[in-house]
């Protein structure tokens, strides 16, 4: 076991200072720890200091009208259990309740999932499809960035030295859904993740994939193929074909490029159909 120091700051300012006073990679923030501690145990990360966020007042879930703000250290299980999330953000609900297992979701958080930026994150694709925004606090003030800008590459984000994710904001309820493919239903890393949402205000679709390449990605051509309202069977097929041909796919020990390519098309068709039929799609 690595010999990191654990610090448990009482305030946001103390947490920022604890992260900032060490060099890059030497300090890491700890939310649920379900992903970070694995990397520490297996030697992929060797921080000298781990900064626990557990005393910060970020275990929150706030509604401002229909817009939802999720505190970065709220356990995923609490998000899953909010009755309004299920109705207003059905795709988010589906994605969250399919992360890991119940015991894992009692500790794992949205902020942790985002900052750890795993290629096969089960949450980042739906955050992309919902145009979620990341609220950051740091030594040089607060700022807000779109998830699409925040997640840069496998395990790399736009988080600057000393910065922390305070919350993730979902601006607009959207008919939406999520599908995964894994070897084991629980506690497994997805081979393919597909998230789809329809923006009623913008009359446009959002399609995102994860698990297939180093970075979860919005697919704009596939989304455009779905049109500006209820897509017909042809449009859905064109979107699936676009996703299968235009997205980047890699082969690794979990699945081959070809398998992922075919699966993305199939899951996309099913997810769009589900959004239209069962997730409150406008008439």
């Amino acid at each position: 076991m690595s010999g990191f120091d654990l610090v448990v700051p009482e305030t946001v300012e103390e947490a920022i200072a604890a992260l900032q006073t060490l060099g890059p990679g030497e300090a890491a923030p700890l939310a649920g720890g379900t992903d970070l501690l694995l990397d520490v145990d297996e030697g992929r990360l060797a921080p000298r200091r781990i900064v626990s966020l557990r005393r910060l007042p970020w275990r929150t879930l706030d509604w401002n009208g229909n817009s939802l703000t999720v505190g970065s250290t709220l356990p995923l299980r609490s998000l899953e259990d909010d009755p309004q999330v299920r109705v207003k953000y059905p795709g988010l609900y589906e994605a969250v309740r399919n992360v890991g297992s119940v015991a894992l979701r009692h500790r794992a958080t949205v902020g942790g999932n985002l900052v750890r930026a795993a290629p096969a994150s089960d949450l980042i694709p739906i955050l992309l499809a919902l145009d979620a925004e990341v609220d950051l606090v740091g030594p040089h003030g607060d700022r807000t960035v779109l998830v699409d800008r925040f997640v840069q590459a496998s395990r790399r984000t736009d988080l600057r030295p000393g910065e922390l994710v305070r919350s993730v904001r979902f601006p607009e309820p959207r008919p939406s859904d999520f599908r995964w493919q894994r070897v084991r239903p629980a506690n497994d890393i997805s081979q393919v993740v597909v998230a789809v949402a329809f923006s009623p205000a913008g009359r446009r679709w959002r399609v995102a994939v994860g698990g297939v390449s180093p970075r979860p990605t919005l697919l704009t051509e596939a989304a455009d193929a779905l049109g500006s309202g209820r897509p017909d069977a042809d449009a859905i097929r064109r979107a699936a074909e676009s996703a299968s041909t235009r997205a980047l796919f890699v082969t690794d020990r979990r699945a081959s490029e070809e398998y992922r390519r075919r699966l993305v098309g199939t899951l996309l068709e099913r997810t769009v159909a589900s959004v239209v039929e069962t997730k409150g799609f406008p008439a």
Partner: protein
Amino acid sequence: MTAGPVRLNVNGTARVIPDVPGPERLLDTLRWRLKLKGTKEGCRTGDCGACTVLVDGRSCLSCLTLAHEVDGSAVTTIEVGPDELLVARVRAAFEAAGALQCGYCTPGFVMAVAGLLRERGTAAPREELLEGLGGNLCRCTGYAAIVRAVDLLRTEAP
């Protein structure tokens, strides 16, 4: 803080555990400092659920949880006495259904079932309860009897 005390209420008894290093997992604190060996180490990577305990009534993978992170919490393990009625009922149901073979996964399963029933109630949909056990592995593949134990605990929705 390289080390410091961790305060836990373990199975109803207040404990102050001195000098727990920051990186120490709750699993190791329970097994090696408190000598509560009922909680098992399986994979140590959060895949198998053998180390499941309850923290403030909710299931928790003790192998992926730093002891200091649950400072001040109530921890319930398989060793809890018969006064903890829910865990006692789950243990009895596992016994009645013969829901164990080698027994290594059993403490984790019992705590996971107890946690689910506390969260969702015994009238929760069967599918939801069984899905909620997806994080626990039985390498003897004795799942059928475990499902029977869950069925013994379920009550029909009113």
